């Protein structure tokens, strides 16, 4: 396999990996109002 293609594949893998990690840890879903107890936690 051409080294150029190998580099392209490797960089694609890197971009996908970074994209996955950012989505997983930094783009969070909206908080649910139901996620807390029935008093004192200030979300009601």
């Amino acid at each position, binding site marked *: *396999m051409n*080294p150029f*293609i*190998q*580099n392209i*594949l*490797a960089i694609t*893998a*890197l971009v*996908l*990996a*970074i994209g*996955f*990690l950012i989505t*997983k*840890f930094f783009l*969070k879903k909206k*908080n*649910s*109002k*139901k*996620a*807390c*107890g*029935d*008093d*004192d*936690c*200030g*979300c*009601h």
Partner: protein
Amino acid sequence: MSKQINVALIGNPNTGKTSVFNALTGLNQKVGNYPGITVEKKEGICKLPRGVKAHIIDLPGTYSLNASSLDENVVIELLLNKNDKDFPDVAVVVSDVENLKRNLLLYTQIKDLEIPTILVINMADRMDYKGISLDLNYLEERLKTKIALVSTRKKQGIDRLKSLITNYKELSINHCIDLSEIDKNYFENLKTAFPNQLLYKLWLVITQDVNFGKADRNEIDAVTNFKTKSKADLKRLQQKETIKRYQFINDVLKKGQTIDIASAKDLRMQFDRIITHKIWGYLIFFVILLTIFQAIYDWSSVPMDFIDKTFAVLSEWTKTQLPKGAFTNLLAEGVIPGLGGIIIFIPQIAFLFLFISVLEESGYMSRVVFLMDRIMRRFGLSGKSIVPLISGTACAIPAIMATRNIESWKERLITILVTPFITCSARLPVYLIIISLVIPEGRIFGLGYQALTLMFLYLIGFLAAIISAYILNRVLKIKSKTFFVVEMPNYKLPLIKNVAITVLEKTKAFVFGAGKIILAISIVLWFLASYGPGENFNDAETITKKEYANQNLSAEELHQKIASHKLEHSYIGLTGRAIEPAIRPLGYDWKIGIAIVSSFAAREVFVGTLATIYSVGSDQEETIKNRMAGEINPILGGPLFNFASGISLLLFYAFAMQCMSTLAVVKKETNSWKWPALQLIIMSGFAYIVALIAFQVLK
């Protein structure tokens, strides 16, 4: 288009509701014996006769419609809100044949909401054993419903249940009790003030001591011509209602149910006396724990060695057989060792969950909850905290979510804060690899040192949790009170299908949940370890050759020196060296430092990271364990993973808050960054100090 109806599956905890759900939908799901295990809403589709489809919701277990916790609110909110898209066309109330009297309280409440209701009497296979006989026609007539006598264990009665659901329109919606019998004046006034509303629904909205998301109490408060009673009066009326319901149930069961005590065989009491005994109970639990940890080691060593060797061969094969280049190196040195670092632990994880699942299925786990309640009370926690703490052995995230079952905010907050101390399955790979490197394989009284070390780590996690709970209970100035009721389900022979599903699901969740993160981190780490800035990295070969020109190194040795030089001056090497001063006093080198930092994403990433770092530049076919065993401490000399640094690492992972996802869940559940920030600082600070002391004392 086929018609779809909404079916709500409702019942007391431990009535086998989830087993009925599995039997109807074919969806596989965990069935446990913890009180209130069904915390989340579970849905499934069931195909019924005549092309009808049923959308089935498995609602959280509840004893009545008088909600006292967040998951019980889910049930009441759904049943009171006709506009909810999931509002049931028909409710299926699941009861246990042995606890019919108690289970029928909930049934009569739902019936009075005028929802078509089917009564399932489950665990029918135990009727002969317990000497119970039922007059179903009489029960159907008095309870104004249709009954399905079901045994999910023997797969009986499910077809009848499906047929009853299909024909739900034929069910009566007549009430079981007349509310005006409780307090004529009050209920007549209520009816006059809200002529278009269902009386029992109004009564429930008025009396619930909870916050409703959907069923709005303000509507009632806004009507000025109706004066509601004081809290104490309402409680008194609620009690009268419960008494009325039990009078009705007693009357129905007097003729509808016969229990022949002479023919009942019951060993349960004798078992319980031993298993929950204040000395024997703890001793039995301790012996069971010892057996589990020993078995985890003994049974999984062969498959683990096989997996380790297979990945080493696969990595070598990839390197030699695929065309040379960056992508081949990424696969051979990054992806394969990284994934191997997690897959190797499948046998041990599977065996751990096999044992936990058998203990849950058999009914023993509820006895453990009862036993532990005695200890927990002394540390300011209730028995309800034990459920999240035991769940924490799998993962802290669902365990923290399970604290929603605890009514007292103070106890809930303390449980949330201390749960991450419990040894979760993500710590297991770290423990196992370090133990195998630094603890000898010998045995004492038939028990391996390695198994005992693992058990010790589980115990110190538990001790750290309850001691912190004790301190927090003293420090936090939040006033609240709570009560704890635990139901002891019958002892059952675990269903192989349920155990197999649990093991499969937990193992799958472990591998795929962590696997994707490990794969991504392995790729990033490989890049950071394979490239670097400046001359030191780019001219590594020239510099190394010059440095060792006077030493007679073989080609292989020289190759290793070049690879080592490159790694040290790669991006990851430079980062690792920057943090090395902070971790050196703990006995770690920069490679371990990188593994600790990356394992903040998930603890199990630690092993995968080291496997990737040690693989970069290495041409040898080596297992992960051998690579780690061969590492030399650059400062002190000798093996990097020795007794002192190994114990230090084990203790660090036992106490450190090394999990981003857990912190995110704590933030979500407490609605504040204050608590996760405190957790991170205190736990990780404590872990650092303990690890430091351990290394300095043992080195």
